[in-house]
């Protein structure tokens, strides 16, 4: 039942005291006439409504959540506590600089650690999400070429395996996109790359490990080829968990990078945000960074980079997300960062190894933090699709992996266990995946019906799009 259907006229919470000054009149021409319909409920009813909704939601706390490319780690509780400190939550963004030295230190320290982990020289924490970071990074590349009056560079190269935000971000910065096909090994096809390189190329957007979970061994050659033609290399940090503490993107030839603090640095996803899409760059791009940079040691203050691309949003980014990420990095430290990476890769390879005798691996080689299975064969033989297996996992108390991504693998299931899962959890998941495989042979019909234990079965998405109902209508 929707919250509006629970509303009863006259109910409510008592939140505000009576007015202790003379009321102010609203000018007639500006007075609201349109009736408001916000629900009228007591606190009991509101609390129960959301408790009921929470029961129909699933978080990392509920169990295994191996969403490929999403890095659904456990979210430490200390980080939540630290982000709730009044010394952070009650601070106005426009307070005098001497009264926000703690916030500035959080930003400066987080930037320093993140630069060290990524091999970058400067970092901005203003971007609010991964996609926002991508747009910021691409704007840095645009600004760089503009500053050199190199106006013919209008194209960004993006592998066909990339996430959809990559091409969309390039478009937002008015670049056209050159899509390069992946080779049979899922990595960048060097010959195809060479074909498109030229003096019209502004840069390359890449993630390494790539979206199929493989480390591209030619990475130094790739980034050099792009540099040699005058372009810059952009690192999509979606998969940084696979290399942090082991390889720095800066050492792979990347000039700009965005991070997802809500993936790699363990801040919670919140059902789809807020995250943080920190953007780092090499020194020669630092003058273009957006917004304000924290400078100074004892008395810290803000400075605008000399040739800044401008603001990407209000104020200084999703600050409380940065607080959580900083608490996380402080906890792990120089030993814990590579340890997390090692175990993320171990867990993925362990699971892959235990499944590859029955499920077809899209690329049967040592993977990084995630691997992709193709259920094309299974579907061909039994009619059971990646979707069917995913939905059946729900009935077995597990969140499905990422489905149908990357687009270059048919019937893809992309599994990223992360390092915060124990062997016991992995073994249990392996048991369920194997059981479902058997079920697909014996009883495919049953899998088409899944899920049957959720509040609803598979929903009619076509109807949702064709006859959109996007809000409740009051009678």
């Amino acid at each position, binding site marked *: 039942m929707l919250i509006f259907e629970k509303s009863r006229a006259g109910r409510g919470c008592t939140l505000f005291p009576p007015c202790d000054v*003379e009321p102010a009149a609203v000018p007639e021409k500006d007075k609201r*006439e349109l009736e408001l319909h916000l629900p009228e409920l007591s606190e009991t009813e509101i609390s129960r409504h959301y408790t009921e909704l929470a029961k129909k*939601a699933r978080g990392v706390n509920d169990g295994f959540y191996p969403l490929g490319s999403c890095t659904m780690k456990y979210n430490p509780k200390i980080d939540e506590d630290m982000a709730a400190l009044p010394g952070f939550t009650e601070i106005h963004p426009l307070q005098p600089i001497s009264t926000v030295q703690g916030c500035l230190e959080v930003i400066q320290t987080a930037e320093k650690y993140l630069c060290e982990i990524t091999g970058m020289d400067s970092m901005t924490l203003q971007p609010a999400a991964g996609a926002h970071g991508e747009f910021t990074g691409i704007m840095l590349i645009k600004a760089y070429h503009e500053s050199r009056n190199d106006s013919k560079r209008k194209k960004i190269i993006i592998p066909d395996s990339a996430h959809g935000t990559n091409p969309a971000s390039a478009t937002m910065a*008015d670049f056209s996109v050159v899509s390069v096909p992946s080779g049979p090994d899922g990595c960048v096809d060097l010959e195809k790359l060479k074909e498109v390189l030229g003096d019209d190329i502004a840069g390359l957007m890449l993630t390494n490990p790539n979206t199929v979970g493989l480390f591209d061994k030619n990475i*130094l050659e790739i980034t050099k080829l792009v540099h040699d033609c005058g372009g810059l290399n952009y690192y999509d940090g979606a998969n940084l968990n696979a290399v942090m503490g082991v390889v720095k993107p800066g050492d792979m030839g990347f000039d700009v990078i965005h991070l997802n603090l809500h993936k790699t640095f363990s801040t919670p996803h919140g059902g789809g945000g807020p995250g943080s899409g920190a953007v780092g760059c090499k020194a020669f791009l630092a003058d273009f960074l957006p917004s304000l940079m924290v400078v100074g040691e004892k008395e810290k203050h803000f400075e605008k980079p000399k040739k800044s691309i401008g603001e990407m949003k209000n104020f200084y980014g999703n600050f409380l997300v940065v607080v959580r990420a900083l608490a996380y990095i402080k*906890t792990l430290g120089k030993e814990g960062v590579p*340890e997390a990476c090692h175990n993320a890769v171990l867990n993925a390879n362990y699971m892959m190894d235990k499944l590859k005798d029955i499920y077809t691996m899209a690329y049967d080689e040592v993977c990084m933090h995630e691997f992709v299975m193709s259920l094309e064969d299974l579907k061909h033989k039994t009619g059971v699709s990646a979707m069917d297996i995913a*939905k059946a996992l729900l009935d077995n108390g597990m969140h499905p992996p990422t489905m149908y991504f990357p687009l270059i693998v048919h019937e893809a299931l992309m599994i990223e266990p992360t390092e915060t899962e124990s062997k016991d959890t992995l073994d249990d998941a392996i048991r369920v995946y194997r059981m479902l495989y058997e079920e697909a042979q014996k009883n495919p019909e049953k899998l088409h019906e899944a899920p049957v234990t959720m509040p609803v079965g598979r*929903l009619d998405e076509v109807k949702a799009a064709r006859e959109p109902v996007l809000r409740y209508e009051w009678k």
Partner: protein
Amino acid sequence: MGKYVPNTEAEQKAMLSEIGFSSFDELFAHVPEEVKLKKELDIPSGLSELEVRRDMTKLAEKNKIFPLIFRGAGAYRHFIPSIVKSVISKENFLTSYTPYQAETSQGVLQSIFEYQTMICDLTGMDVSNASVYDGATAAAEAVAMCRERKRKKALVSSLMQPDTLETVKTYCHGNGMELEFIPEKDGLTDIDYLKAHLDPSIACVLIQHPNFYGNLEPARQIADLSHEAGAKYIMSVNPISLGILKSPKEYGADVAVGDGQPLGLSLAFGGPYLGFMACLDKIKRNLPGRIVGQTNDKEGRIGYVLTLQAREQHIRREKASSNICSNQALCALAVAVYLSAVGKQGLRQAAELSTAKAHYMAKELEKIGFRPAYKADFFHEFVTVSETPSEKALAALEKQGILGGYPLDEKRILWCCTEVNDKRGIDEAVQILKEVK
């Protein structure tokens, strides 16, 4: 050092050997040596939970919490009912992913559907998305969504919150849209300038209402002028003001945007906040961002899914008009809980209290020489002009633990009151200012 890896070293070794590796080095052997780190990271050693708590608390204590705040300028201290934090701390919400797997995400999806409904209710618009990053990016995305093949220019009031103005500028520089700022006149957007510059190349007109100075714009007149010229009209509004001020729909807007921070989100040194974005039905397919729709399963049970995805980057890739995907879902949840808690009476009350306190403070300030800078009507922010240097006045307040208004220049200060500012606090601030010479 702290860690969140459950497997012991012995278990890790056993797992490695079970899949044919003798060590992590061997597991990573396929990564080329020349890119591998040769020494450990130059960051401090890991800490225990107790140490992290100590460290972070120390940082928080280096900030000054002002018990009394008269500063807004884009971030507002309103009262946040306890139920808001209670709901958004629920782990099923806090630690869940974007609701792609609809069957196990009905709670998140329904809460967004309810949020969308509330935003439509507030703004009077037909369709709301599930949020964007903040008010600034909402304005920038709104400008981008109004672009047409032959209309590539936006006219934007210079009386937008400055970061919003700058963000619109950045986005337009990115996508190549032309941008012209409408100057101010007497604390309002200059209507004559607008009239003179509206032509068939204009895709949209964007204003903030109440504007950056808190003043009420001639919002209806701007709507009529924009529409006569065939341009879309975007209003960036303060959501609390919608408890008593006309909705964007009533003023004639095509798109309504704003920052949702006043609706239950803490100041938090600028974020996370949330941008709301809603529009008329006829342009809904241009609306960026996630949208939740109602549908049903085979058995006819009602359910919610992410919908109209043909607009979005994961389908359209480089042809998408925006790259936005997941953004501020938990903040949208906070806003929905806030709006449920205040209800229709409470939102009006918050708005009435805020404007009453601001008008009281303005009158009291006038008595001591901080005169209103503009004649225009205002909501809960206003500008004073005074012979007392702004910095001096504000320093006197700061000394007494009061964050005064936002200094616009040497003489002008932008003040703000909300329902949390009581008469006593206002009188106290005025008394302190009176003694500043």
